[in-house]
């Protein structure tokens, strides 16, 4: 056996070894990617949204807009205060409601309600909305995000669980009107 063939045999073995590692690596990559993608996958299969109560209707007097908070349905034990999410509840006429996300439709800063001028104002880039959530002025490309709501047993329930952003489920459902009485 000549030296050349010995070298090439070992080179082949080295290449087989590399290919073997590549295959094992590819197999290992599957669970790693799945692990990294878990926040997305969970959102896709089960969905993050859930019905949750904002409390009795008596907290939301007719014709007024009040801040309500809820504990996010999907949470971890170490989330602390960050799992408490605020939202604005507008009782239009005692029968119909609008529940707005706290997040400005521009870049997500917390909008504040000014009852005297009936406006929502955002502290970040100056977005302003009318009392019905529609865009009044400033950079937001649309009106405030709205949660779907329903009234059950004298309680106001909303479908929530995910920070509303452009393209998220909360944003696409305009949230108007009760889904069931």
């Amino acid at each position, binding site marked *: 056996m000549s030296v050349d063939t010995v070298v090439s045999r070992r080179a082949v073995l080295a290449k087989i070894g590399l290919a073997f590692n590549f295959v094992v690596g590819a197999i290992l990559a599957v669970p790693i990617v799945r692990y*990294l*993608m878990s*926040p*997305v996958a*969970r*959102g896709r299969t089960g969905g*993050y949204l859930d019905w949750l109560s904002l409390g009795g209707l008596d907290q939301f007097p007719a014709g007024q807009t009040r*801040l309500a*908070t809820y504990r*996010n349905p*999907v*949470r*971890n*034990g*170490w*989330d*602390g*205060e*960050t*799992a*408490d*999410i*605020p939202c604005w509840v507008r009782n239009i006429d005692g029968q119909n409601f609008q529940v707005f996300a*706290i*997040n400005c439709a*521009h*870049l*997500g*800063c*917390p*909008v*504040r309600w*000014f009852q*005297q*001028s*009936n*406006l929502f*104002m*955002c*502290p*970040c*880039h*100056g977005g*302003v909305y*009318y009392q019905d959530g529609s865009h*009044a*002025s*400033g*950079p*937001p*490309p649309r009106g405030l995000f709205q949660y779907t709501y329903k009234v059950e047993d004298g309680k106001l329930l909303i479908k929530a*669980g*995910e*920070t509303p*952003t*452009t*393209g*998220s*489920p909360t944003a696409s459902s305009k949230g108007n009107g009760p889904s069931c009485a």
Partner: protein
Amino acid sequence: MRLIGRIGSWFDARLQLGGPIRETAEHAVPRDSASWFYVFGSAALTAFGLQLVTGILLATVYVPSAGEAWNSLQVLNHDIALGWFIRALHGWGSNFMVAIVLIHMTQVFLFGAYKYPRELTWMLGVMLLLVTLGMAFTGQVLRFDQDAYWGLGIGASIASRVPFAGPWLVNLLLGGPIIAGATLSRFFAMHVFLIPGLLITFVCLHVLLVLTLGVNEWPVPGRIVRRATYLREYHQLTHTKGVPFVPFAVWKDILFSGFVLLSIAGCAVFFGPFGPGGPPDPTIIQTAPRPDFFFLWIYALLAFLPPAVETTLILTAPVVGIALLLLLPFFAGEGEKSWKRRPIAVFVVLLAAVTLGSFTQLGLHTPWSPVMDAWSSMPIPREYLHGRTALERRGAIVFQEKQCRNCHSLDGQGGKRGPALDQVALRLTRDQLVRQVIQGGGNMPAYGKNLSPAEATAVVAFLHTLHPEGQAPARDAAQDVALGADQARTPLR
């Protein structure tokens, strides 16, 4: 001393590092490059070293948990001996590091050091700028306060605008559906493991290239870089007129690094640590989130982009900008190095400095934001009420009560979102005032639904008095003719 020498040679016989280290230390550099202009690279490395040490020290106490992070920062600030000082060093070290990296980059750009054969050195430098900014941003998130919380909200909102993959990216960025524990954990992993790993790798390659290719010579006007001849010319420059790096150049690096460390320590002592601000409780909405200094210009820019092109610009401008920086050596890889013969390069630097400076300044003052408490905290100046009718004073009350002040200033006090109204009666006639208040327009909300007819009449009556003494308010001259001069000039009061 002899014992130390013997121990040293025992190790060197095994490690055999003495030779390469000596060779590196004494590598020839062009005599002119042993200059004070060439100290910023090593200073950035020194600042990074300080960040590494202080970062590890902070990690011995910091708790990367959404429920506890803020409390652990309070413990660092108040309960642990000199914990505040380590936090201050890390915070100020971050600002200094970003600033020095930017200065280093500007110097390298103006001195043409990115040209052949140092293209890759420049590209790694651009990557180093990006990871340094990445460290600054993730570090700001770890200071888990209100600004960090809502800053993440801004990040998520930007990510959500990516076509198709937007909502997925938001979940990936936040580690779940909301900003919470999972979000902080992944930013901790990025700030402490991932980005530092990249940073160290890039730094090693960057320094290796500086040593391999040699430090840039002092640019002389008229000395043109050509691929065919440059290496030979540089070799000649270093080997005939060169000097060893140690000790000819190194003393300036060492002194400047010491000066930088002292400055950071000085700022840390005098100004103290950054925050944390209010606790990361999203239900506390009385907050005006603001990013750290080096991101203020982006924050300001986001207030000015027209909605129609905003998403496109947010998503493409960074990619284009980074690509331009990375590719710079490929469209300007040869030619003049001296900034004295590169007016466009100088202009680009000035333009960038003025632009970034202006937007940063705007970000500090946020004239586009309503002053949320102006309506209740800034009274109407006395002279604007003196000698006015009851209706006009009633209008002043409506003006305050309806929060007009949040966007409009009187006597320099109030929001700057809308125009100052001290002389509004000179600009708008009574009819125009009514129209503007009722219908809004020009970025002003319409108040028609929020004002009763009586309130609208009152507030317009008040606004109509806002003009300097001796200057008559604006009037519609055509109306004079149509209605007869006498009738139109008779005020409604």
